[in-house]
């Protein structure tokens, strides 16, 4: 199929001297090309929100470039991503009538510890439900809770719980930091805050050096609640703390291409800056996420392959890895994945300042992280083509899986924690079963790299799963898979080793100081098992893996897409178009 390149969508917005669009636009294109037809009905595009791309800061304006081979790279930018927040305690998964079919029954805790809970995946909903509850979490040992050094600091914060949360120190509007360029709050911010329904959807989005706060449920969707412009730094990722959010408080962390982190509380317009000028780690932050059910801890994935846990309330100090020794060198020579290294353990007695913990997962870029619904494990996907499942609480690797080829770009968990999805440069979405420790199916249908993948928790039950994926091919694909379908014979005939797990794992599960333990635990036949019971899985041949076709595939934008989200009443997608003076699109399909 060959289609002539479409004319530039926004007229001459990109032409030199043309006026840059400074306002967000809302469009309502109609027609069959803006509809998604799936089994359960038709999704129609209701809103296409075009966010104004900020012009580069005058001090940072790009020079006309006459050298086609120039190595000049502008500041690293990411496509527009969204962080969503609903203030009321999410009704999911108990109230799923609007789009769902039938009631949700959480799967009883089963075989695997990481397969326990059906709390949404990394998406914001969900303090509701059994496993999301505080009681559940207080009964299990959480991250860092066995370290008395951490408890001391954490205690006073806990005392304030819910009533009066700690706000950051500095006012962002009155800030005289050169890092922040301008803050444009809405004229009637208090009024709009008051009008906002607790069920309404707030969205936070990054567009190059801008960070906007939108109210997607309001009439005036195009009016930013607040727009923050940074001087040079680009926001690459952000996350809202679903645990601490309330009508008067939202904890947001943003990761920047400079390595800096900003903790921002939009209601009071306060902020604090961490990892200043890369004091702890100077490489860009590719993704960032609050630790599940933690008020003050969040994790940042730096592009040098390091995961760093920060405490929003702590100061930075220059960080020297407490243990820079690659503990697993012998294995590396054997052709295994580069070792997982603990640069600073959460058990470290030195917890006066950030980082709380730091782990080197790869020496290549980390492209995505996702916490398991039960908050016990963390999935990390890297540029080196690996999916690493970490037991981050005990700081160890549970399993390593490989893409068919090329980097992995995105990762998510199924609502029940049984499956992990990854997408990457092999144009595939791969379904991994953690219970079986195996690749279940490869989903073929994208025409280019897969940039984001998410489950639709409203259309999943204990046997059937619905998920969506988007990619560089500008397409949104929807997929259905069911447990029954997966029992196809060819799924089981895999030619790889994978099932050596347990003995070692139990042995080391609660080791406290595991700085060096990796190399000491190698079993005699330890080709596939690395120390700590970490299992490295081989790549399955394409002939032996089930192939899943999509139930729907549609081009939803003219630009490569980069973020996908399922909400109770809509599907959201945003596109990557961030590097020229255009508008970054967010389309909302309901």
């Amino acid at each position: 199929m060959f289609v002539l390149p479409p004319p530039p969508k926004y007229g001459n917005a990109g032409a030199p001297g043309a006026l840059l669009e400074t306002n967000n636009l809302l469009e309502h294109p109609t027609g069959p090309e803006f509809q998604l037809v799936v089994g359960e009905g038709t999704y129609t595009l209701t809103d296409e929100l075009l966010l104004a791309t900020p012009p580069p800061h005058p001090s940072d304006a790009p020079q006309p470039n006459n050298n086609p081979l120039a190595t000049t790279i502008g500041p690293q930018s990411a496509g527009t991503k969204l962080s969503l927040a609903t203030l009321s305690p999410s009704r999911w998964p108990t109230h799923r009538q609007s789009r769902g079919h039938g009631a949700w029954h959480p799967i009883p805790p089963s075989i695997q510890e990481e397969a326990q809970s059906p709390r949404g995946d990394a998406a914001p909903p969900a303090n509701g439900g059994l496993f999301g509850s505080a009681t559940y979490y207080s009964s299990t040992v959480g991250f860092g809770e066995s370290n008395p050094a951490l408890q001391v600091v954490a205690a006073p914060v806990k005392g304030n719980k819910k009533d009066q949360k700690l706000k950051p120190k500095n006012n962002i509007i009155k800030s005289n930091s050169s890092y922040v360029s301008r803050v444009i709050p809405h004229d009637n911010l208090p009024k709009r805050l008051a009008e906002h329904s607790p069920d309404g959807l707030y969205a936070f989005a990054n567009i190059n050096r801008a960070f906007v706060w939108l109210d997607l449920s309001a009439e005036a969707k195009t009016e930013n609640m607040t727009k923050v412009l940074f001087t040079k730094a680009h926001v690459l990722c952000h996350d809202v703390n679903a645990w601490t959010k309330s009508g008067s408080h939202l904890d947001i962390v943003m990761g920047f291409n400079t390595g800096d982190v900003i903790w921002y509380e939009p209601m009071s317009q306060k902020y604090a800056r961490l990892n200043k000028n890369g004091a702890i780690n100077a490489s860009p932050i590719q993704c960032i996420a609050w630790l599940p059910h933690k008020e003050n801890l969040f994790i940042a994935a730096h592009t040098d392959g390091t995961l760093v846990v920060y405490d929003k309330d702590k100061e930075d100090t220059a960080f020297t890895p407490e243990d820079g020794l690659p503990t697993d060198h012998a294995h590396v020579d054997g052709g295994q994945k580069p070792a997982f290294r603990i640069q600073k353990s959460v058990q470290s007695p030195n917890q006066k300042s950030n980082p709380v913990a730091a782990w080197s997962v790869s020496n290549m870029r980390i492209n995505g992280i996702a916490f398991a619904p039960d908050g016990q494990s963390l999935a990390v996907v890297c540029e080196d083509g690996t999916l690493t499942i970490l037991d981050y609480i005990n700081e160890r690797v549970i399993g390593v899986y490989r893409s068919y080829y090329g980097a992995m770009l995105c990762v998510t968990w199924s609502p029940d924690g049984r499956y992990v999805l990854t997408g990457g440069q092999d144009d595939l979405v791969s379904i991994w079963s953690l219970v079986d420790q195996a690749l279940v199916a490869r989903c073929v249908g994208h025409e280019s790299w897969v940039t984001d993948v998410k489950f639709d928790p409203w259309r999943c039950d204990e046997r059937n799963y619905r998920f969506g994926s988007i990619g560089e091919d500008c397409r949104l694909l929807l997929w259905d898979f069911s447990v029954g379908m997966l029992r196809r014979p060819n799924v089981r005939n895999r030619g790889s080793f994978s099932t050596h797990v347990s003995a070692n794992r139990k042995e080391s599960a609660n080791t406290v100081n595991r700085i060096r333990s990796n190399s000491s635990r190698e079993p005699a036949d330890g080709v596939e098992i690395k120390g700590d019971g970490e299992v490295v899985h081989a790549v399955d041949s394409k002939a032996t893996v089930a192939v899943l076709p999509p139930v729907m595939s549609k081009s939803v934008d003219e630009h490569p897409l980069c973020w996908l989200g399922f909400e109770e009443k809509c599907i959201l997608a945003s596109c990557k178009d961030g590097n020229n003076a255009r508008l970054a699109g967010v389309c909302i399909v309901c």
Partner: protein
Amino acid sequence: MSFLSKFKGGASTSTPANASSAGKKDPHTTPATPLEKHLRDVAGPLRTDGSDKFFGFENYGSTCYSNSIVQCLYYSAPFRSHVINFPPSEYLPKPPSANDRPVAPRSTSAIPWPNLTSPARKVPPVPGTPAAAGQKEETKDSPEYRKRMALQAGPVLDMIHDNSNRYGMEESLFTGLKDIFEAILTNSSRMGVVSPHKFLEILRRENEMFRSAMHQDAHEFLNLLLNEVVENVEAFSKQHPPINGVAHANGAPVENGLARKETATNGIDTRWVHDLFEGLLTSETRCLTCENTSQRDEPFLDLSVDLAAHTSVTSCLRKFSAEEMLCERNKFHCDNCGGLQEAEKRMKIKRLPRVLALHLKRFKYTEDLQRLQKLFHRVVYPFYLRLFNTSDDAEDPDRLYELYAVVVHIGGGPYHGHYVSIIKTQDRGWLLFDDELVEPVDKSYVLNFFGGEPIPGLQDAKQLACAYVLFYQETTLEAMLKEQEMEGQKPVPTRTSEGEVAKDVGLNNLRNGVTAHPPAVATPIIPDETDGLESLAHAVTMPSVAAPAVQAPLEPTQTTPAEGLAATNKSWKERRLEAKEKKAAAKAAEKELDEKRKEASAKRVEAWKKADAELKSAIEASKMSAVDEASKRGDEVPKGLAENTAPPGGGLSRFRTTSLNLKNKPKFLSGKDRGPASMEKLPSVRQEVGGQQAVDGNGVADAGELSPATTPEMKSPPVTTPMSPDSARSPMSPDSASKRYRFSIRKKESQGVT
């Protein structure tokens, strides 16, 4: 290898300029180039396989198509070693005894030399070529300037002689290529410039379509070159009886042409090009009338895939093998039911090539414009690849490929522009080869050439540069892991010549780079021998095993292997010891570890201090050099301004230079090689070729004739169709939108027909 050493000495003396090594340069004119900086930490003797030689190629006026392709072939380790080791030493004519200059070369280039059309040679603009000189922007950072510096710095290997008689072969493209490879290999310098006179002369003499100094198609050239090499090699094998076999009297010169045959009978391996680049496609055609399925296998040397906007190479390959309807004007001749029928056709890969040359069909004939157009579609390509479109009976269908070279086309259309290649070298990372210029680039730079529709008004010339040919070579998962392991340990090369960039990004990199890698630590690894023949994976894709230890970023790492071993032993014992002992051991270990940590951190601090000092000195040095540059620029800028007649900042200077050269070509071609007065006019043959290809594309015949069927002597009269050679590439048949593969072994017999 023994063969090589025989005349190593001779060859290196044959080019007297060689003596000057990289370090021997006028200090005040040239601060170290990025490549020099990049190679600064290399010590030890040169390797014998040529993998640590980094030579630019002089541009003879739009010969970048050849330069970029030859570079890609050179850095294919198995290809290089085959070229160098062919013919096998027992077939070589006896070398003349103790003669420094190895026999009188058979012929010397008739092309005027030194080459005046080379843009980079125009140090003082040659009178008579004012147009070309006028376009130049003489800034320190301009590629033109840097290319000129590269040429000045030398050594320049002037390939004006033909040594084919030394190989016992007829002069051919293969011997030309071999001459170049040998010269690079035997030169004592690590970097320099090759001036491929003779090679181009042979190319032009034998191939009408490359005779003009016009912009040519790099992919077409690749295909021609590979086919020529196949032919030359086979011709040699035919001429040479097996050492203990029967004579195979065939003295016919190569030019007379020989049909391609399997000629492995006499023991000379002539199949190596096939072994490397050739794959097998199987096309299944199912006649919709009689339901009969016919199968045909067709070899290919490269795959040409159609492009669509916002796709990946994977998807293009999938589409290549997608089912296709043969109907309407494109019906299938069914042998079973006789006559043209509608049919379904599907092409899958049955045998995977070891080197997959992937041609992205960016030049497409558009009906409404009646000419070729460049497609700027964004097509992403990953560093690693596997093929989905293999047939069920394919061997090793999950073979892993790694990207090792990208040929980039720069320009707005198919009729002009420039080619460069970006190539992964064995252990020096990715390098950019832009004619004379060789520069280290960051790995991420490789992914800058996905393409994408140019945004009108956006002043960024990068938009015009898109990947055109991708070279993937087979590798293994182990090799990939090894390389990923190395990744974090390599210093990040930066093109400091980019000036502005270096400040923000570069400084950071420098800081990181220096802390992590004291430059003195690294030593190159010398492989015992060129074993590229047997195990591609080991020779090429995998940095040598010893490397991690040597290049280890942190000094503590060096202690690790021992420590790790000890730890393993300890733990093995621990299991057998009493709890008490366990505790004691653990304590001891902890202590030990603590000490080590202390030691390590002390070392780190030291390293940082050192690095800091180095950084400071580097900054100092760069300041010095900046002053130098400034003073240099002082006398150059006026000249540049005088020359610069174009409005500043309007368009691509490089791009203009190359297209402008087209106008200079009469100057370039002279003597017996002077073509018809108007070079832009091509012989009618080319059109025929296009037509034949179309037939081929219809799946009717394996015609595959690409041969520009004229010999230089014939001097076909100019034809008035102003058709570019490129048009042959995109046939006008209705099939043009469909996929195409090509294995154009040229059948020389056809020459007689014309």
